[in-house]
């Protein structure tokens, strides 16, 4: 005796088919999804970020009402622009700044990346395993790949970290507040919001996008300062008689330093009107401040006369010697390398 299937002959035996599923009629060809003709942007990382964020702005700023789902998606877009900025900046720094390059030399990348990336993009591979989902990660990335310590006020990292928690909710929980996120944001004020959805209003999105923009610009300026500071040491190193001030990369003459300075300026400045002061202005500010710091050292050195100062060496590098500024050569040469070459 055969078991009769219930119902009509048209019904399926698939007892898993609790919902309907549309079959794949076409599969994704991921290789066609990326724009092969796209050329690596010549813009600075900050300009690229601004451009991306501005494009996102145009998607909603002229609309009076936007749904909270759309604001969440836009929010993720802004965050993605931030992550992309960090990657671009670290990559550009490794290409441009010899100190950063030195630091990155010891880092490992996958064989696949080494084989297929072009030279310009290779530093990207260093960040394959880095995520920028908390301010700490970002600061650590700069430290480990470029050896700079960003000095950023806690008030700013705190705001970024709040946004990072919101991002986590959007990416992983369709905006609902998870327990870990609630703990990070402060249980006192968030304990009654578990599993409640994020509903960003138009004004909230305005605040989030503007906060992220300010955070990125803060990182940009802090990194610019840290990178430049390293090229012009004002604190003596060593002990006792060997204590000395490392030489700087700068001759303090704009015409002589222009070629080198422009490299740094281009990495961090924006070409948007009214955004960045002119290169010469920034050079003057930088050198004036460093000279003032050196004067302080001189006053200290007068009291302890055993600190020789690199900058005061009239015959030494870099004064009168611009060879260190040649293309592909030497911006680029950190102190120990300069020292080694002179020894040869």
């Amino acid at each position, binding site marked *: 005796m055969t078991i009769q299937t219930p119902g009509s002959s048209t019904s399926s035996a698939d007892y898993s088919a609790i919902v309907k599923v549309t079959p794949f009629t076409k599969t994704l060809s991921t290789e066609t999804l990326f724009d092969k003709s796209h050329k690596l942007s010549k813009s600075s990382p900050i300009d690229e970020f*601004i451009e991306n*964020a*501005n*494009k*996102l*702005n*145009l998607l909603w*700023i*002229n609309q009076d009402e936007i749904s909270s789902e759309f604001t969440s998606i836009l929010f993720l877009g802004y965050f993605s622009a931030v992550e992309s900025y960090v990657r671009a900046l670290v990559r550009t720094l490794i290409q441009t700044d010899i100190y950063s390059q030195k630091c990155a030399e010891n880092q490992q990348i996958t064989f696949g990346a080494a084989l297929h990336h072009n030279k310009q993009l290779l530093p990207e591979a260093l960040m394959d395993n880095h995520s920028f989902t908390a301010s700490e990660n970002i600061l650590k990335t700069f430290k480990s790949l470029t050896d700079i*310590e960003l*000095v950023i*006020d*806690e*008030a*700013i990292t705190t*705001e970024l970290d709040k946004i990072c928690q919101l991002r986590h909710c959007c990416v992983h929980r369709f905006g609902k507040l998870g327990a870990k996120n609630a703990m990070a944001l402060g249980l006192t004020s968030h304990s009654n919001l578990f599993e409640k959805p994020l509903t960003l209003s138009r004004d909230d999105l*305005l605040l989030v996008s*503007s*906060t992220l*923009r*300010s*955070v990125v*610009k*803060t990182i940009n*300026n*802090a990194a610019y*300062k840290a990178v430049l500071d390293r090229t012009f040491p004002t604190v003596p190193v060593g002990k006792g008689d060997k204590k000395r001030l490392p030489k700087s990369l700068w001759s303090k003459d704009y015409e002589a330093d222009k070629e080198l300075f422009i490299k740094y300026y281009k990495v961090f400045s924006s070409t*948007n*009107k*009214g*955004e960045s002061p002119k290169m010469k202005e920034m050079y*003057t500010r930088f050198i*004036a*401040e460093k*000279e*003032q710091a050196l004067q302080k050292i001189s006053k200290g050195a007068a009291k302890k006369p055993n600190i020789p100062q690199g900058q005061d060496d009239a015959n030494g590098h870099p004064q009168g010697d611009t060879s260190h500024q040649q293309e592909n050569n030497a911006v680029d040469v950190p102190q120990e390398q300069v020292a080694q070459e002179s020894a040869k």
Partner: protein
Amino acid sequence: METEINEKEIDIALEQRADYITSKELKDGTATSDFFDEIILTLLKKQTTLIVGPRGCGKTHMMRYASILCKDDAKKPLAIYVSFNRYYRLEPMLISRANAINLFHTWVLSRIIVATHETLVEQDEVFSEDELQEALEYIDISDLQNLIAKLERSLPLTQDELDLANSITLHTTKKIIDNHTSLGSRPRAILLLDDAALTLTPEYMAEFFEIFRSIKSPYISPKASVYPGTTEYGARFHPTQEGGFEHVWLSVSSPHYIETMHSIAAHRISDFSSIPDEIRQYLAYAAFGIPRAYLHMIIEFQKKKFSTVQQGLNRIVQSHTEARIEEFLTLAIKAPKLKTIIEQGNALFSKLVLLLKEFNDKLAPSGTKQLLIGITGIKDQPMVERMFNLLIEAGLLYPVAEKVSHGEDRKYDRYTPHIAALLHERAFSAKARGWSARIVVDKINQKTSRQPLRRSVSSLFSSEELSSLKFDLPACSTCGKERITATQKYCHHCGAELLDSSTFETCMSLPLHEVPGLTKWTVAKLKQELPRFKTIGDLLSVQDPGTELRKIHRVGQARAEKIIRLVTSFVDEFLQ
């Protein structure tokens, strides 16, 4: 000789500011009058107070005088005088730092701590290093001074400095004030916070008054000096609830006006009594309740660079009127968004002066005068209200405190326009045969007419003028499209952030040679020997402006310092 050095002029330009005279000069040169005594008394009292008056009316003088009175009297409170006139140096951070408001907060508290410490140290009593350290909660005062200096130069902070900045809290500051009060054996402290009218940086102003509100305690009474015409002090500070206003701007209609002005000048000007009474009165009225202006005009008169008294007075009054209007117009440089309102405000001021002149001409036969004009409908038009407030802040209109209800409950706000402008317009010399200072003064001293002069906003402005009032916001710097609203953050056309420019940087780009008070000799020498210094910023941004100035033949250390002080005081004044 046109290009003589004329050092004295620089000295005079500097010494009329209370911030540049020594404590002894200030103490000896202070006049006493019921009006000022009352203000000093309020400053010493245990209550929150805002002292209100335009530039030059004596706010700094009275605050400094109050602090000097307390210095030598242990029964009086510890009077901590702090000037915030350098606040504008932090303004560039508003467009370059995400944490600008926090840094401003730190700067205000740090300045208060340093001033508290200095006030105690300046007392005759000697305290041990340990006692002082403990009172400071072990904060290193030189680190704090260094932090202040760095913030005033908008320099980025190191991690250590950021840590220090974050450790300076309101709680710590209050504790430090309390520690110093008790170490100095004082019953309580008063905080004399001068130059707190941060009208051009509303973000800082709100933060400042948040501190002002929160710092008060049964043992700490804050007082701040502000400009008239300011109605908003940030979201959480409501002056009428927190304390009171004390108006320092002496009204020309006050029965003691001439007496008070004379007593101030008599203390500060040699040979004051030898100046004829009608001249003293004429110039006192022209000074419009501003002692600094009065001193300046008397000194000008004493130079006797005129052929007749009438010509001399006319010139002094004219140049004073022009300078006040010029000062009002520079507001449009400091706050470009106010350009239209300022220009219309200037036209309005001329109109009000003319209306009063015509009214007084008509009153001439009756033997009365009128200095007031009542205007209705100001509060209904926010842009018009802003315009009046700006004229008040600039000291061009004196607001009469009480409101007058008339007829069908119509509300009139009453104002007196600057008397110098009225004098310049010959408002008090109608139909007089010949001219004399005495006739003018007698006319001003006449009784006030019972007949009021009244206008409404709609009669003062055409509807086109009213609808043209707007904030002048710059177009998007990226795509050039005009903004749609004043609060817009991003450009509606290209999505770019709408960035503001820094007023501080605008000030730094002003021509150096036009700084008021620089003598012709100095300007000529600057042009000739230091041609690269074209703007104020060119001079002040070099590492050591003094060394540069000393390159000029016959400019030594003292003269160089004076020039720098003059330029910096102009910057401070410009940015107030």
